[in-house]
């Protein structure tokens, strides 16, 4: 039995590798869609007190666009892709072939386009993950909200909050070559899923 809150450095490395492979594939997908180079940082794997998770994205009252998907399968998880409002507008302008700075508010089509991005990134992430571990996981349809980061993060934190006072997050930051877009991709394993993930990479 893996103690979710007491991982060895090797197990943390394994989770980081999961984040790396998944996010690498996602970054490639995003890069192909918008035809720009996308850089990503080394994934952060951290056990953080639940109440400080909003600080990872600039504090609870920062305005962000969040795309949320539930992940079903052997290691149920949640995926949350968060972008600062400015980045989301820039990305929508890019996708819609509009001049940058055009979007001031998201309409129905814009939201739909961003949700599709969420779909593609999650699919790429989970595919890479499958190739690596042979654990098959399927994402739900995406949902989108533009609001305060604290409020948006509630959806994952509530679930984790039922099981403990800390959250294990695997977080990767994306950055486009022209600095127009940055985003945070969170994979938040459900309590109980971490053990499955760690076993899958063979460092139980």
């Amino acid at each position, binding site marked *: 039995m893996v103690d979710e809150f007491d991982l060895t450095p090797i197990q943390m490395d394994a989770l980081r590798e999961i984040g790396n492979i998944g996010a690498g594939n996602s970054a490639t997908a995003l890069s192909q869609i918008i035809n720009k180079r996308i850089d990503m940082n080394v994934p952060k794997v951290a056990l953080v007190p639940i*109440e400080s998770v909003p600080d990872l994205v600039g504090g609870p*009252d920062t305005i962000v666009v969040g795309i949320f998907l539930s992940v079903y399968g052997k290691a149920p998880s949640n995926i949350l892709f968060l972008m600062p409002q400015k980045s989301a507008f820039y990305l929508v302008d890019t996708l819609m072939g509009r001049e940058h700075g055009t979007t001031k508010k998201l309409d129905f089509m814009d939201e739909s386009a961003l949700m599709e991005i969420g779909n593609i990134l999650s699919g790429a992430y989970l595919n890479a993950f499958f190739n690596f571990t042979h654990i098959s996981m399927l994402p739900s349809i995406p949902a989108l*909200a*533009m609001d305060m980061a*604290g*409020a948006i993060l509630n*959806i994952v934190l509530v679930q984790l909050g039922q099981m403990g*006072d800390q959250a294990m997050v695997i977080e990767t930051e994306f950055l486009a070559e022209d600095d127009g877009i940055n985003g945070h991709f969170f994979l938040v394993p459900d309590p109980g899923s971490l053990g499955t993930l760690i076993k899958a990479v063979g460092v139980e």
Partner: protein
Amino acid sequence: MADLIKVGMADYKVGRSPSTLISYGLGSCIGVSLYDPQKKVGGLLHIMLPDSTQARASDNPAKFADTGIPLMLNEVIALGASKSRLVAKLAGGAQMFAFANATDIMRVGSRNAEAVKQILRRNGIKVIAEDTGGNYGRTVQIDLNTGVYKVKTIDRGEKDI
């Protein structure tokens, strides 16, 4: 200059006039305020979940409505408030993402609001104002000089309740 005291997620603070207690970015969480208008003391609690008995053991009673409210109530009384004069206001309890097949977890906002009202009622405290539900985040603050509870949103303006 009056103090602005920050209340984090799953946390609570109590204080007296002229302080203001503030909590940022509530989604399905609820900000519960207690206020004694005569003594001008009160508290603000930011709960995440309705019921501690449905969760695995936690070191933090302020995370839940059923354990957090009595805790704050005792501290507000210790500051000189009278239970019979205390009034409660609450805001939050949104469902941030719309899903056709919302699970219990996704509807936690409305369950939070119900639990908070029930626990306040059980403790004999009157709820005099409420702004809950919807699909948007809120930042809330209570001015302990006036008892005004301000609810700020991103595109729905702000209001005093």
